């Protein structure tokens, strides 16, 4: 099971048709495997937070069992544009 940040970024970008993805490898010495992801996709429009997270979880269903800690933030392109203006 390949679990590099780049692999996760490419998979999220492709499967969720995301216009922007950031993946940070937050693994520390004492942890097995840990990531924080930001996904920006129009697929999230009109969807409540739980449903957005389920989309990401489904995309990484094969990988999540091997990841010790996983944090995610899901934004629509509009939300992402507003956030960058802050």
């Amino acid at each position, binding site marked *: 099971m390949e679990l590099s940040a780049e692999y996760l970024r490419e998979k999220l970008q492709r499967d969720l048709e995301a216009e922007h993805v950031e993946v940070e490898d937050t693994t520390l010495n004492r942890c097995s495997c840990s990531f924080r992801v930001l996904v920006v996709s129009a697929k999230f429009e009109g969807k409540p*937070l*739980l449903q957005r*997270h*389920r989309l990401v*979880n489904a995309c990484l*269903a094969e990988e*999540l*069992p091997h990841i010790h*800690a*996983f*944090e*995610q*933030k899901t934004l629509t392109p509009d939300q992402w544009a507003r956030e960058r203006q802050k």
Partner: protein
Amino acid sequence: AGSGAGGGGSAEQLDALVKKDKVVVFLKGTPEQPQCGFSNAVVQILRLHGVRDYAAYNVLDDPELRQGIKDYSNWPTIPQVYLNGEFVGGCDILLQMHQNGDLVEELKKLGIHSALLDEKKDQDSK
């Protein structure tokens, strides 16, 4: 119903468990001694809102519960939060609800007054 088949992880038993209290959390560890950062974050958020009378289940004590609750919610990770018997999400979602004010509103629907409203009131009155 007997407890033989299905043990602590049957869907019926979990359904009863998450509906038994207004606020239910499944943690790694206990509220007093969370064993991972995300379980701790959930505990701290609830503490910030002054929510104390919630049901907390330590999945580290019960492997069947640990897998059963993931199957029940179709959610791959622990901690998990339920409000009024409904799955809300994990640590990330609870944190975002805390940050954007949704959690105060959801607690209000349950008849739970968030302590953060009192803090806001104090600030407003200054």
